[in-house]
């Protein structure tokens, strides 16, 4: 359904409540421990706490760690956990069993796969990314360029909405293209199939960053014939602050891929303590050191939920929420010059909406003080994420109402709202 074209001005809070009543995902809200007085529109940055997490983490600490102790590496399946949980993420991203493994931070995982990707094209000297990519991706790639391009670093080419385009930078010197599927700021979504096809026709390797996609939009990595992917689990997957990232490596690369960091958990036989490094088969070779089991315990609890939901429902609701939000911005916030930066075409949109407004930082602080939590991304965007499992249509309504009040009263001009924290 498209609210934007049905009757935008006729919407009121009762309409939103009716939409909530008919929402097949509405019951999931109760599976999360969200404070009642919050409208939480930042699940794209840090997902909400599932109700079941605390008990599961407590179980892992008291039983698996406290009672099982070292025996839990086998008995509680700790050693296999990065692969077992990887297999549970696989259906969310169109990956096959045995293609996904959990790692350290997203940054470290990108380093691990980007080096492996570039090593598959040793004769090429260019890495392509996007100017608007999340900074850590660009920084990590800079490190990869220096490592693999000695003496002179590999060349970086950045595509940009204002040009150059992907087609303009692709040539037979491009080794790897690393793109974030859903842009962290604007929510713009790339056409994974088409982009991958073009990258492949230039003979390059395609790496996707799925931080803002996994759990937000259906992804089909194998369907798109992509090569590598990485993603966060602390956003839409609700793994908790700093929960481990995942790496996906297409099966066809498993036997030849050579990741950057050769740690003991990526060894074929880690407990033989061999002198020689012999990489394990499969995606296991991308593992590095001892995995962070307590962070994984929290993720394991939330993946229970993700095992139940149908991503088609998630996508449908996500689009309903973002369309509702956009149409309410259009109908109610126009007087303050609020601009929707996110694509209006649903096929090009992830699960978030970015708004440009003067003094967006202060406006966002005023919103947060009123219990509507989004975030701000430099230089001028207010970002609202719509995690379909716990955001309701009424939340969207209420957020717009508060935003309207903040803008109408100008309360955001109070000096305290201009003070910057480290995290924006």
């Amino acid at each position, binding site marked *: 359904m498209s609210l934007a074209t049905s009757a935008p001005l006729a919407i009121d809070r009762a309409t939103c409540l009716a939409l909530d009543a008919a929402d097949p995902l509405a019951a999931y809200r109760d599976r999360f421990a969200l404070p009642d007085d919050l409208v939480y529109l930042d699940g794209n940055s840090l997902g*909400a706490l599932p109700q079941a997490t605390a008990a599961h983490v407590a179980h892992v600490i008291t039983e698996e760690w406290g009672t099982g102790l070292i025996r839990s590496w086998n008995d509680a399946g700790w050693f296999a956990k990065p692969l077992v949980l990887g297999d549970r993420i696989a259906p969310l991203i169109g990956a096959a069993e045995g293609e996904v493994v959990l790692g350290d931070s997203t940054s470290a995982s990108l380093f691990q796969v980007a080096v492996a990707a570039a090593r598959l094209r040793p004769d090429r000297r260019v890495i392509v990314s996007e100017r608007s990519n999340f900074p850590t991706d660009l920084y990590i790639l800079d490190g990869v360029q220096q490592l693999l391009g000695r003496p002179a670093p590999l060349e970086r080419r950045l595509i940009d909405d204002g040009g150059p385009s992907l087609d303009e930078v692709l040539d037979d010197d491009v080794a790897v293209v690393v793109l974030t599927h859903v842009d962290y700021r604007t929510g713009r979504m790339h056409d994974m199939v088409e982009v991958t096809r073009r990258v492949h026709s230039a003979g390059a390797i395609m790496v996707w960053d799925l931080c803002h996609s996994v759990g937000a939009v259906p992804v089909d990595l194998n369907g798109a014939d992509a090569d590598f992917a990485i993603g*966060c689990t602390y956003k839409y997957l609700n793994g908790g602050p700093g929960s481990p*990232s995942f790496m996906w490596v297409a099966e066809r690369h498993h036997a030849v891929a050579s990741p950057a960091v050769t740690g003991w958990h990526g060894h074929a036989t880690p407990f033989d303590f061999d002198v020689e490094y012999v990489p394990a088969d499969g995606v296991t070779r991308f593992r590095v050191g001892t995995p*962070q089991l307590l962070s994984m315990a929290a993720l394991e609890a939330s993946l229970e939920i993700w095992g139940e939901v149908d991503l088609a429902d998630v996508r449908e609701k996500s689009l309903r929420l973002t369309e509702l939000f956009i149409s309410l911005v259009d109908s109610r916030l126009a007087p303050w010059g609020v601009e929707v930066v996110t694509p209006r075409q649903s096929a090009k949109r992830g699960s978030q909406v970015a708004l440009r407004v003067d003094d967006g930082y202060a406006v966002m602080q005023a919103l947060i003080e009123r219990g509507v939590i989004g975030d701000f991304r430099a230089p001028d965007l207010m970002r609202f994420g719509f995690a379909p499992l716990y955001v309701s249509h009424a939340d969207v309504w209420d957020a717009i109402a508060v935003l309207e009040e903040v803008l109408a009263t100008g309360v955001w001009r109070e000096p305290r709202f201009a003070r910057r924290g480290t995290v924006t």
Partner: protein
Amino acid sequence: MTLDPHLAFARRMDRSDGLAHYRKRFAGAETDLVYFDGNSLGRPPVSAIERVERFLRDDWGGRLIRGWDEAWLQLPTEIGDRIGRAVIEAKAGQTVIGDSTTVLLYKLARAAVDAQLARDPARREIIVDTDNFPTDRYVLDGIAKERGMRLRWIEVNTTAGVTPEQLAEAVGPETALVVVSHVAYRSAYLADAPELTRIAHDAGALILWDLCHSAGSVPVKADLWGFDLAVGCTYKYLNGGPGSPAFAYVRDDLQAVLAQPIQGWWGTTDMFAMGPDYEPVPDIRRFLSGTAPIVGMLAMEETLAMIEEAGMPALRAKSVALTEYAITLAGDWLAPLGVTLASPADAEERGGHVTLHHNAMREVTARLWQRDVIPDYRDPGGLRIGLSPLSTSFEEVHRGLAATRDTLKTVLLERAGLA
């Protein structure tokens, strides 16, 4: 029947042990289970359970995204500084917690060799010993390959470790980096850290210390001994929980000149400026890469509080007493069965665990586990007994070694066809 004098001794020691009261602050210490593997995975502090629960409910659940600015963003350096102060004697601003030990090893080793090669392209050698922990060797092997360098191996006896003589012979004008474990994971050999550091420096090399088996067990004086770089686990003697993030130490004057290879946004001057170019902050945070794993960082703080209170010298004194006692029991009970000591006999040269050798130990370990006595096994024929000073009692050592004795006897009788 008279009491076994060894048991009487253990009870006396427990009664006079100034650290004995810490034992009950660890989950499971009240059970009969004998835990000899705190050097691999420490027991959970009881208060950690509550701490994590509170964090989930109030901090993640209650503060959500605001938690980053309010508290969590500083945890890597805050906890790092606590480890610096209480555990490795490093002044503030030089220690940070972040990724796994292996990832930190990679980052620091790469940073070190890159800096050395830039300064002097002839420095193409990394020195490491043949019995260093596998991940150290594998990481260095990978770095040597990708940087066109050589590994120079120091052959060590698996019951000992790297000596100053061996290192002095190995270093030279081609040495870029030396990597040594302060306490060897197999033998518990305690390297002469100040002396090895001096030898490396005299040769113009940098040295990277692996403190996994010393942190929280053996006093370390990172600043005084002139360390360049160090990494260490927090899930062993610091009880951080399985896979809790490791720490890295980088001496302050090296921070601005070392560039680490996993250049992430957490290491930049202004992480929310979000510009396209990497600008590393000129302090310890530049060694961070991505979002820190917060849930896994909390438990270790409970142990750090205990160490701050008790002090490393007291922990070391108890650790020595525990290993001495284990060696005495092994001498009385196990030597007659053919068991030899695969750790240094001299406490000055020994860390916090003891390795006992017998070709039946693989089997013995498996059977001890069945009886709730948990050491671990390290080839060849090594029964490794880790004695975490805050959570282990002397009587526990007695129980565990008595069980080892009985089990080994049974195995040997069975082998001889007599059982």
